[in-house]
C-alpha cells in the first residue's frame, strides 16, 4: 500500500484560484478546498457552550469548591530591589485558620521586583489567609533599582541581573524567534533580522526619515486572574483545576516540580476567563503558583485554592514589554524604498522577549535592504510574557507611522507606498479592496480640507497591515470521535476553550462529516485525560485541532459506511442529513439511528491526528515552510483639537485566516483584537513610580481598558484563502487581528492633525503637544 495519495485541489482566494496536485500522507482525508460544499462548517453557529456561560452554570477555576478546601495567599516583596534579611513565619503559622505556611525566599536572596514571591500561607478562608500574611515579619535591605527603560540603558544604571540570562518562552510565543544573545550591563542583545545591505541602501536614498517611536507596557488584564486549585489524590498523584491556555503545559510543569509522572497529574479547565498569552504552565511568569499551591496542599493534607487578586495579576503575571524604536527609512525620489532599519530596545522587566515582531522585516519586503535589531533591557519590574501577537503591535506602530511620515515627505499616498512594497498577493488584494470600501481617497482629501480650514473636530484615516504565520502543529493533537449504538455522537480532546469558541468548531467539523445536526454532537474538552491537545497560543488551536477531529470523524464514518454497505449488500449509497440511502432506489434508506443499531458492541470509536502542514500557499512565512497570513485594517479617528482627545470611530478590517470555520465566533475574534488594539493605542499604560519603583495603577480603575463607549464601529471582511495546508483548511485569527490596530490609529491621527504622535498611548497631552499647543513631556 502506498503511503501517499495523489490529490487535485482548487486553492487560492477571491478570483485567483488555481488547481494543484500533490501527495497527501496516507490515511489523510482529502482537504476541503474551494470546490468543497460544506453545510455546517463556515456557517455562523452560536456557541454550544453559550447556555452554560450565560446562566452562571459554567464553573471556572475560581468557582471550584471542594470539601476542606483551603485558600492560599502570597506575601510579595514591596521593594523593587532588596536583599531579604530575616523571615519569620511563626506568627502566621499561629494565626486564626492557618493550616500551612511556606517560605518562598531565603535570607540573603536578592529580590528583583516589587511583587516577587516571599512567603505563602494556606488558611480556611481567603480573609484568614490575607490576615495571616500581615503577621509575617520580614526584613529587607533595599538596593539601588531602575524601573525606567531609558535609564536602565545608561552605563551607570543599577544592574538588574548579575549573571547571564537565558530566554524563557512558552507556547504563547511565536515559534522560532528566540536566538543566541550577548549581554552588557542591563542590555541583552539578540541577533538581527537582516537582508541586503541596509547601510548601502541608506546611501542610495534621496529621501530619508529617521525618528524614535515608543510604546508603553501593556498588561493582559484577563478578567479571571491566574488561578489554580490543587488536590493531592495520593502521595504521587494529583488533580489540578487551572485557569490556563495550555492544560498539558500545566500538567508537565506540576509533574516536573513534584517529580511525578505526567500521567499521574490530571488537569481540568472546563471554563477559563481569558488569558491573552499569559496563562501557560502551572505558574505565572513572575510567581511560582504551581509550587506554592502544591506544596501548601501537601503540607496541609488538604486541597488548596490559589486565586490571585487583581493587584497581583498586574504585578507578577506578565505584560507586553515597552519599546523604544529608532526607525530609519530611505527611498529614491520617486518613492522606492531602499532601506528599512529599526533599532529597538524594550524592557520585559526582569524577563526577556521584548522584540518588535516581524512587521518591519516581513511586510514591505520589496525593499531590498532591511535590518531589524531588537534588544532586551532589564529593569526591576515584573517579567513580561507572550501577549496576543508578541512584539507585533509595537513593531507595527513604529514602522507604519514611520512609513506615513516618509510618504508625507515624498508627497505620496501612504497606501500607494504600501502596495508598491508589499509582495503578498492576499494583502495586496486587501489593500485594494479596502481602498474602495473605506472610501480612502475621498476621506484622505476630507482630512486635508479640515486641516486647512483649521476646524476644531478633525477626522483622519490610516491603514496598517498584519503579518502572522500558519503555525498549526502536526501530530500534537489526538482527537477521539465516537458514535454509540444509541446514535449519540461525541468528540473528545484534552484541550481548553479560552473563549475563542473551539468547542463549537469541533462540533461543527464532526457534524459536517457525519451529516448530523450540530446539536447532536457532544463535545468534551478541558481535561488532560481526554487525550493530547495543544496549548492555545500562536493562533494555532483551530489549525491544530480541527484536522485531527476531522480525521477521527472520517475514520468513524468509514466504519459506519462498512456497516451500511453490508446492510445494502454492497450496492452504491450516499449520505445525507437523515442517514444513508441506496443510490437510485427510492425505498432503500437507513436512518442514522437505525444504522447505529447495527454497531457491534457499544460504540464505534476512532482517534485522529494530523500530519505536519502541507499544501500550497500564495506566500510562505519567512524562514519556514508555512503559510503567511495577511490582514489589513483601515481606521478613521476623530480628534478634538481643543482637548486633544482622540476617538477611533470606524474600522474596516480585512483578514485572512485560511478557511473561516465559524463565521460568528471568527468575527468576534477580529472585533476583540481590534478593541484590544484600540485600548492599547488610546488608553492603557502601566505607570511606574520611578522614585519608589512600584506600579502606581495595579488595578482596573486607573489602569484603563476600553469600555463599550470607547469602541469604534467595526466592519469585518474575511478574505477566505484555500491553501490545502491541512484537511480543514483552518489557520488562525486571534493574534493577527490585533496587530495593525494601534498602528492604523496612529496613522489616522497623523492624517487628521498633520503632525505625528510617536508615543503610545495617544493621550490628549501628546496630541496637544504635537499640535504645538502645550510643551511636550520632559521639555
Amino acid at each position: 500500500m502506498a503511503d501517499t495519495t495523489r490529490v487535485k485541489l482548487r486553492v487560492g482566494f477571491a478570483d485567483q484560484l488555481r488547481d494543484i496536485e500533490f501527495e497527501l500522507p496516507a490515511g489523510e482525508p482529502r482537504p476541503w478546498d474551494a470546490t468543497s460544499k460544506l453545510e455546517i462548517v463556515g456557517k455562523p453557529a452560536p456557541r454550544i457552550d453559550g447556555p452554560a456561560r450565560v446562566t452562571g452554570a459554567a464553573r471556572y477555576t475560581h468557582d471550584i469548591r471542594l470539601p476542606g478546601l483551603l485558600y492560599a495567599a502570597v506575601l510579595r516583596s514591596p521593594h523593587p530591589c532588596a536583599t531579604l534579611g530575616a523571615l519569620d513565619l511563626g506568627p502566621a503559622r499561629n494565626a486564626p485558620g492557618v493550616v500551612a505556611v511556606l517560605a518562598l525566599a531565603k535570607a540573603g536572596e536578592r529580590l528583583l521586583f516589587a511583587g516577587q514571591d516571599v512567603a505563602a500561607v494556606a488558611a480556611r478562608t481567603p480573609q484568614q489567609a490575607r490576615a495571616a500574611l500581615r503577621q509575617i515579619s520580614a526584613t529587607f535591605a533595599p538596593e539601588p533599582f531602575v524601573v525606567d527603560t531609558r535609564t536602565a540603558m545608561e552605563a551607570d544604571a543599577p544592574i538588574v541581573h548579575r549573571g547571564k540570562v537565558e530566554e524563557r518562552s512558552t507556547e504563547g510565543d511565536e515559534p522560532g524567534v528566540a536566538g543566541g544573545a550577548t549581554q552588557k550591563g542591563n542590555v541583552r542583545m539578540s541577533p538581527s533580522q537582516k537582508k541586503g545591505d541596509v547601510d548601502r541602501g541608506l546611501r542610495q536614498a534621496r529621501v530619508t526619515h529617521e525618528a524614535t517611536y515608543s510604546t508603553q507596557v501593556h498588561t493582559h488584564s484577563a478578567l479571571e486572574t491566574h488561578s489554580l486549585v490543587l488536590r493531592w489524590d495520593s502521595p504521587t498523584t494529583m488533580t489540578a483545576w487551572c485557569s490556563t491556555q495550555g492544560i498539558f503545559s500545566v500538567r508537565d510543569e506540576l509533574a516536573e516540580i513534584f517529580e511525578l509522572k505526567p500521567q499521574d497529574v490530571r488537569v481540568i479547565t472546563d471554563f477559563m476567563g481569558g488569558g491573552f498569552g499569559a496563562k501557560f504552565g502551572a505558574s505565572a511568569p513572575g510567581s511560582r503558583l504551581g509550587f506554592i499551591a502544591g506544596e501548601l496542599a501537601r503540607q496541609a493534607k488538604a486541597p488548596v485554592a490559589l486565586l490571585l487578586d487583581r493587584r497581583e495579576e498586574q504585578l507578577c503575571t506578565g505584560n507586553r514589554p515597552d519599546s523604544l524604536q529608532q526607525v530609519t527609512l530611505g527611498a529614491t525620489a520617486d518613492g522606492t524604498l531602499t532601506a528599512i532599519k529599526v533599532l529597538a530596545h524594550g524592557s520585559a522587566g526582569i524577563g526577556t522577549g521584548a522584540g518588535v515582531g516581524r512587521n518591519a522585516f516581513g511586510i514591505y519586503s520589496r525593499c531590498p535592504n532591511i535590518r531589524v535589531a531588537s534588544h532586551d533591557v532589564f529593569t526591576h519590574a515584573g517579567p513580561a510574557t507572550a501577549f496576543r501577537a508578541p512584539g507585533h503591535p509595537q513593531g507595527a506602530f513604529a514602522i507604519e507611522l514611520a512609513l506615513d511620515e516618509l510618504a508625507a515627505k515624498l508627497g505620496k499616498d501612504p497606501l500607494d507606498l504600501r502596495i508598491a512594497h508589499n509582495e503578498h498577493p492576499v494583502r495586496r488584494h486587501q489593500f485594494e479592496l479596502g481602498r474602495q470600501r473605506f472610501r480612502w481617497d475621498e476621506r484622505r482629501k476630507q482630512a486635508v480640507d479640515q486641516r486647512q480650514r483649521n476646524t476644531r473636530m478633525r477626522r483622519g484615516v490610516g491603514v496598517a497591515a498584519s503579518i502572522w504565520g500558519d503555525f498549526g502543529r502536526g501530530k500534537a493533537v489526538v482527537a477521539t470521535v465516537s458514535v454509540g449504538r444509541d446514535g449519540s455522537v461525541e468528540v473528545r480532546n484534552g484541550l481548553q476553550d479560552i473563549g475563542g469558541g473551539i468547542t463549537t468548531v469541533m462540533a461543527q467539523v464532526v457534524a459536517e462529516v457525519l451529516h448530523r445536526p450540530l446539536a447532536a454532537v457532544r463535545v468534551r474538552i478541558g481535561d488532560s485525560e481526554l487525550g493530547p491537545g495543544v496549548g492555545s497560543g500562536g493562533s494555532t488551536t483551530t489549525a491544530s485541532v480541527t484536522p485531527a477531529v476531522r480525521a477521527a470523524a472520517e475514520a468513524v464514518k468509514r466504519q459506519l459506511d462498512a456497516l451500511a454497505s453490508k446492510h445494502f449488500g454492497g450496492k452504491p449509497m450516499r449520505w445525507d442529513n437523515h442517514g444513508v440511502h441506496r443510490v437510485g432506489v427510492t425505498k432503500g434508506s437507513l436512518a442514522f439511528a437505525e444504522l447505529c443499531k447495527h454497531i457491534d458492541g457499544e460504540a464505534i470509536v476512532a482517534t485522529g491526528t494530523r500530519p505536519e502542514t502541507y499544501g500550497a500557499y500564495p506566500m510562505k512565512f519567512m524562514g519556514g515552510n508555512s503559510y503567511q497570513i495577511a490582514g489589513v485594517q483601515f481606521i478613521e479617528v476623530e480628534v478634538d483639537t481643543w482637548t486633544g482627545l482622540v476617538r477611533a470611530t470606524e474600522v474596516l478590517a480585512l483578514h485572512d485566516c485560511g478557511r473561516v470555520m465559524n463565521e460568528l465566533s471568527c468575527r468576534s475574534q477580529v472585533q476583540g483584537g481590534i478593541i484590544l488594539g484600540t485600548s492599547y493605542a488610546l488608553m492603557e499604560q502601566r505607570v511606574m513610580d520611578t522614585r519608589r519603583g512600584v506600579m502606581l495603577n495595579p488595578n482596573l480603575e486607573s489602569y484603563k481598558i476600553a469600555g463599550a463607549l470607547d469602541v469604534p464601529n467595526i466592519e469585518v471582511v474575511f478574505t477566505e484563502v484555500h491553501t490545502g495546508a491541512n484537511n480543514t483548511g483552518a489557520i488562525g485569527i486571534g493574534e493577527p487581528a490585533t496587530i495593525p490596530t494601534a498602528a492604523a490609529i496612529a496613522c489616522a491621527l497623523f492624517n487628521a492633525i498633520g503632525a505625528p504622535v510617536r508615543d503610545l498611548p495617544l493621550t490628549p497631552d501628546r496630541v496637544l503637544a504635537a499640535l504645538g499647543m502645550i510643551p511636550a513631556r520632559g521639555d
Partner: protein
Amino acid sequence: MSDSPRFTRRTLFRGIGSSTLVAGCAGQPARPPVPVDAEPAAAPPLDGAAIGPGPAPLRFTLNGAPQTVEVAPSATLLELLRHSLDATGSKLVCDRGACGACTVLVDGVPRPSCMTLAHDVEDRNVTTVEGLAAQGEPSRLQRAFVEHDALQCGYCTSGMLMSCQALLDRPGQRIDGDAVKRAISGNLCRCGTYPNIVAAVLSVAGEPQAPRGA
C-alpha cells in the same frame, strides 16, 4: 421603594463627604493608627440594632427564594453569594467596583456586589445571573446573548447580563445602541464583546420581559 440599599462602601463615602476623604488622603488631620485587622471596638448601638463583630443573622430574598444566613458584618454580598450560597455566577474581578463583573440587582437596581455589604440587603430582593433563567430555561436576553455571540470567555457575561436586564426592565425606556452602551459602561470586557452585546440587547428591546425568579 427605596432606590438603593442602605450602605455600600460607596454610599458610606458619600455619607462621610468627599472633603473628609480628601483631607484623609492628604494625611491631615493626623489620627491615631488603627490596626487594620483589629476587632472593632464596641460602637454605641444605632437604633439598638448594632451587629457583630461575629456572624449575625441576615434575611433576604435571593432569586425569589427566601434566605436566612449567618454572616459576618464585614462580609460583602459577593462573598456571601460565592462562598456561603455557592452562587458562583457573579464574578470577583477587580474587588473595587471598577469592572462590573459582580453586578447583581438589588430591588431591581444594578449594584456591584463586591462593594455592597451583605447585611445591607436585609429584607431586600437580590437577583443574580442564576435568577434570570426561569425554571432553568434561559431568558430571552440570555438566549439573545448566545445567538449574537455576546460572550467569549464569559467572565464578564454575568455582570453584563444584569446591567442589560436592568435596562430592559426600566419602564418607558426607548432603547437604542447608545442607551445599551451607557447601561454597560461600568462593565469591562477584555475579549471585546461589546458590539455583540449591544446587538443582543437591541434584538430583544421592546419585547415584554418574562417574569423572573424561583
